[in-house]
C-alpha cells in the first residue's frame, strides 16, 4: 500500500499549469519568430507575433500572481536551499540521477510537507523562477515598448542586448522545461508526479 501526502495547494497547481501552457506557447511562437524563414513550418510570423505578445502579457500576470501568492502563503521558503550540507545533498541527488535511478535505488530526499524540493531542485527552481524567468519577462516588456530600450549601445541598436538576453534566457527556460518534464517521469510510476501536479497528492 503506497503512502500519500497532500503537498500542493490548488493555487499552486493552477498557477503551474497556467505557467506551463504559457511557456509552451511562448516557446513555439518565440522559435517561429526568432528562426523565421520561408522554409520554417511553425506558426506563421504575424500570427506568432500576436500570440507571443498576448501570452507574454499573460505570463507577466501569472508571474505576479506567483510572487504574491508565494509571499502570502510563505511558499517562497520552499525555494531556499537550507544549509548545512547543501552542496553535498546536491551531489547525492546528482549521483542518484546518474547511477542510482538505473539500479532501482530510492529517491535520496523524498518530498515532505516541510521540504517539497530536494536541494538540487530548490537551487535550480530558485534560479529559474527568480532570475531567469524575471529576465525573460522584463526583456519581453521592453520588446513590447521598444522606446524603453537605449537608442544605441556600442554603435548598435539599443534593442540588441535586450533581444539577446530575451532570446538566451528564453532558451534557458526551454532547456529547463525539457529536463523538468522528463524528471516528471521519475516518480514511483512514470505518471505519478504528473498526477501529483493535478491532484496535489504525492505518492511514495
Amino acid at each position, binding site marked *: 500500500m503506497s503512502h500519500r501526502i497532500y503537498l500542493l495547494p490548488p493555487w499552486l497547481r493552477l498557477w503551474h499549469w497556467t505557467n506551463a501552457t504559457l511557456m509552451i506557447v511562448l516557446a513555439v511562437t518565440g522559435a517561429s519568430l526568432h528562426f*523565421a524563414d520561408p522554409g520554417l513550418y511553425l506558426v*506563421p510570423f504575424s500570427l506568432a507575433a500576436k500570440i507571443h*505578445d498576448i501570452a507574454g502579457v499573460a505570463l507577466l500576470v501569472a508571474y505576479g500572481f506567483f510572487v504574491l501568492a508565494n509571499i502570502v502563503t510563505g511558499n517562497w521558503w520552499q525555494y531556499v536551499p537550507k544549509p548545512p550540507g547543501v552542496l553535498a545533498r546536491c551531489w547525492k541527488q546528482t549521483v542518484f540521477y546518474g547511477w542510482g535511478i538505473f539500479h532501482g535505488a530510492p529517491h535520496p530526499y523524498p518530498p515532505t510537507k516541510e521540504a517539497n524540493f530536494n536541494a538540487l531542485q530548490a537551487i535550480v527552481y530558485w534560479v529559474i523562477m527568480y532570475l531567469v524567468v524575471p529576465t525573460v519577462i522584463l526583456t519581453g516588456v521592453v520588446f513590447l515598448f521598444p522606446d524603453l530600450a537605449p537608442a544605441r549601445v556600442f554603435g548598435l541598436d539599443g534593442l540588441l542586448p535586450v533581444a539577446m538576453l530575451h532570446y538566451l534566457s528564453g532558451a534557458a527556460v526551454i532547456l529547463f522545461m525539457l529536463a523538468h518534464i522528463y524528471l516528471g517521469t521519475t516518480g514511483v510510476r512514470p505518471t505519478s508526479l504528473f498526477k501529483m501536479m493535478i491532484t496535489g497528492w504525492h505518492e511514495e
Partner: protein
Amino acid sequence: MRPRTKSLFAALAFTASVAIPGAGIAADVKGAAPTDPALIEKIRKSNAECYACHTEAGLKNPPRADMDMAALAKFIHDPKQFDGSNHTGMECKVCHGQGYVAFPHAPEAKKSISECGECHATKALRVETQFEDSIHAKNLADKFTCQTCHDPHVYKVAAKVGDPRKIVEQDNAMCVDCHNSDLRYSAFSTALPTKKVRPDLYATHDWLPNARLHWSAVRCIECHTPVSPVKSLATSHEILAKDKSDKACVTCHSQDSALASRLYRYASTNVGADLGFANASVLGSAYVVGATRHPLIDRAVIGLFGLTVVGLLGHGALRIVMAFFRRRRAS
C-alpha cells in the same frame, strides 16, 4: 504618346537642349553639383532672382507691387531644402524654361517646364515600365506623374540620403501625403470611374503587428512593391494594391532579409558585422526579429537543445532497459 516613346523623345530633346545657347545651366558632371566658382556664382545669382519672390521672405516682402500674391503663395520654395535635394547646384531655369525668365511669366510658361525624363532618360525608361504596372498608373494614368510623389525641389535619392531612418521619413511622407489626407486623396480619386473614399490606414493594416513601429522603421514600398529577383536592382516603381502587396513577414524577418538589399543597401556595415551578426547593416539602426541574428549563437542554442533532448531520451531509454533487466532478475 506611349510613355517609352515619350522617354526616347525626351532623351533626344535633352541632347538638343544642351546644344542650344541660353538654355539653363546644369552641373558639369551628371548628378554632381558644379565645382567651378564662377559657375556656382552665376547659378546663385540666377536662382536669387527666382527666390526674390518664390520664398517665404519673398512672399512677405515682394519686390514688386503688381503681383498676384494668392498665386505666388502656391509656389513657395525653401532654398535650404533645395540645396539639400538631388537638384542642388542646378539653376531653376534648367527645368523652368524661357517662359519663366521675365516677369510676368509667360501665360503658357508651365508647358515649358522640362519633364523629368529629359534629363533622367535612362532611369525613366526603367521606371516607366515598372510604373505602367502600378496601381497608380492603372487608376490614375496621366494624372499621376513623377512629381506627384517626388517634389524635385526637395527629393533626394536614397543613395544620397544614406541613413535608413531619414530615407523612411522622406519616402513615407510621399505616400501619406495623399493616403493620410482626405483632401489630397479625393483630389485624385475623382479621376476614378467611381469615386473612392480614402481607406483608413490603421484599418487596412490591422493585420500587421506593431503597424506604427513598422511605419517609422521601414518604407511603405518595402511591402507595396515587388522584390526584384536581381538584388542589385533598386526598388521598383510598381506600387502594388493592397491585395497584391507582400504580406509575407519573412521577406524582411529572416536571415535572408530583403531589408539588407533594399532599405539598408546604402547603410554602412559596422561593428555588428565584426561581431558576426547576420544583416549587420540593419543592426546599425534597428533590431529586426528573425533578421539580425547571430548564426553561431543560434547554432549553439540549437545544439544545446538537441543534446538535451538526446540526453534525456537516452537517460529514459536506459532507465527502461535497466528496469526490464531488474524485473527479469527478480522473477
